[in-house]
């Protein structure tokens, strides 16, 4: 059995963990980051490809929150976490939500102004930029459709940097924060799964891990640490805490953005190498409309959803792009680490209002795409009508049911809520787990509710804020 000692143990290397590691290491702390997944060169695999799915996604992307209907979800499992596989969209937390959560959960020092200053710091350390020049055709379609309908839309900035020839590189954590952490002396341990935390009274003393070596051998590793910061994301942070015997307000209240899709066929070719960066904000914060990865495999999957013959459309797949309507759900779910199971059970209950909102989102999205010039719309609804004209969209209202809607999400939050209201939260206003002096959570689990936008910016700003508090406290 191997042993490591460190001052700060950071578990997980995604948006929360990498920011935590870089911030604390640069402040002079001795930091060790353990990551369950492998370290894969960020340039080695084509974005959104099958190879990337196999190498970087947890469970090959094949996980689901059980419920009626089940909601498929995807997470990264590699050094850099989900920042290695997402679209890099960057959106600050809306001010009205910050104010609402501050009141509802009693979160100290959580104001729009305070968070804005942390967002400034994050943006100063990353490259957050819009696409130089004209947007790609798949994104321009969103803008065109929204403009025709008089709907608000915006080109979101992304965590991207651009070279002289306007080639973009996503600023994933393995390209940005983790190299900074390493330069400041942090150690990254990939392929290392934390089985449980070790505790003594109201202190956590470290972690028991299993590290897989490149040759396939597995080694037990114990790590002792003065401070432990769990950053495994909204599914795996609560699961680890539960495996370690910490249950109070941990794992309940899961929130997500359930998403329904349309494959839209245009009379002209559209791009497939990037994800659209325009979003329609007309129905925000309850419904967001945007575009998804649209490689041939994604297009084929989307076309197959209705069950209708799709070979004719697939033959022209270069003309097809996939789009989504995502909702802020009123429902909620749970994460439970069941004894004997390696993977936690995840459940989610959509409300009837959620389904109604999804139907509305689908119809709105259809209207927008037709206005943008699409000639054929395939919804992600079993038996859903393939639509060619606006007067056919009404049929979707009755077709988006629990039995027929095919839903997915990539945004999961709120399983260890932060705040001073102990009835509703699992951690204090700065992520310290109730009942433990040196155990913190610093990832999307802390976000009290689904934000209605990509949560990466919020995760990084809140993580930076909590690190400042940690440094002040300790």
């Amino acid at each position, binding site marked *: 059995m191997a042993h490591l000692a460190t001052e700060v143990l950071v578990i997980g290397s995604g948006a929360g963990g990498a920011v935590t590691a870089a911030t604390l290491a640069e402040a002079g702390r001795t930091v060790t980051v353990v990551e369950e997944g492998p370290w894969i060169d960020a340039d080695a695999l084509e974005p959104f490809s099958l190879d990337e799915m196999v190498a970087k996604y947890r469970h090959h992307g094949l996980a689901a929150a059980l419920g009626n209907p089940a909601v498929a979800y995807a997470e990264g499992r590699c050094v850099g976490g989900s920042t290695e596989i997402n679209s890099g969209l960057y959106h600050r937390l809306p001010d009205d939500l910050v104010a609402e959560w501050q009141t509802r959960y009693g979160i100290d020092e959580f104001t729009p102004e305070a968070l804005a200053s942390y967002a400034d710091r994050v943006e100063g350390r990353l490259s957050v930029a819009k696409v130089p020049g004209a947007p790609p055709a798949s994104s321009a379609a969103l803008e065109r459709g929204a403009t025709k309908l008089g709907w608000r839309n915006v080109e979101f900035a992304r965590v991207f940097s651009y070279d002289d020839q306007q080639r973009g590189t996503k600023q994933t954590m393995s390209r940005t924060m983790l190299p900074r952490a390493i330069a400041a002396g942090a150690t990254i341990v990939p392929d290392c799964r934390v089985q449980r935390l070790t505790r003594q009274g109201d202190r956590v003393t470290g972690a028991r891990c299993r590290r897989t070596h490149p040759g396939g051998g597995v080694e037990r590793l114990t790590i002792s640490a003065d401070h432990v910061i769990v950053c495994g994301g909204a599914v795996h942070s609560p699961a680890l805490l539960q495996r370690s015997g910490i249950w109070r307000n941990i794992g309940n209240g899961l929130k997500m953005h359930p998403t329904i899709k349309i494959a839209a066929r245009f009379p002209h070719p559209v791009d497939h190498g990037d994800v659209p960066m325009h979003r329609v904000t007309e129905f925000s914060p309850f419904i967001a409309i945007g575009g998804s990865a649209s*490689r041939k495999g994604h297009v084929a999957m989307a076309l*197959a959803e209705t069950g209708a013959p799709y070979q004719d459309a697939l033959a022209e797949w270069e003309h097809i792009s996939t789009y989504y309507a995502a909702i802020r759900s009123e429902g909620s779910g749970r994460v439970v680490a069941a004894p004997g199971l390696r993977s936690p059970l995840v459940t989610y209950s959509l409300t009837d209002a959620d389904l109604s909102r999804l139907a509305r989102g689908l119809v709105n999205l259809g209207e927008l795409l037709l206005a943008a010039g699409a000639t054929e719309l395939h919804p992600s609804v079993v038996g859903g009508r393939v639509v060619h004209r606006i007067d056919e969209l009404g049929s979707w209202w009755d077709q988006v049911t629990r039995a027929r809607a095919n839903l997915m999400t990539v945004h999961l939050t709120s399983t260890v809520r932060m705040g001073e209201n102990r009835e509703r939260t699992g951690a204090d206003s700065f992520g310290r787990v109730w009942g433990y002096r040196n155990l913190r959570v610093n990832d999307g689990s802390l976000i009290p509710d689904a934000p209605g936008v990509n949560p990466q910016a919020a995760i990084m700003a809140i993580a930076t804020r909590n690190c400042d508090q940690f440094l002040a406290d300790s």
Partner: protein
Amino acid sequence: MLWFEREVVGALIETPDQHLRSSIEAFVDGSLRDMPEHLRAGVLGESVLLGAYVAARRAAGRLDRDDREALLHQLESWEASPIGVLRSYVRMMKSLVVFAENELTVEGAA
């Protein structure tokens, strides 16, 4: 993969290219192995039950053993079933095969 899972995957694959078929099967097999174990257990259970149902129908002469179209028709009816786990089973298998068939084609051609 269980025999019935292999049969479902085989029916869903459209390409006659044996090399590609094997690659798709390997991808689906790897994905099923990598699923959360409770989900995999559920899928295995369904595969056994559905496989037994199909075998019984074949034994009764209601389904031709070598009729791919008949199996696809059966999958189609399960996909529209009011029973959620049945729908999810078919959707998952179909998604895996369709994604792999189209991605591997692209990569193979590249």
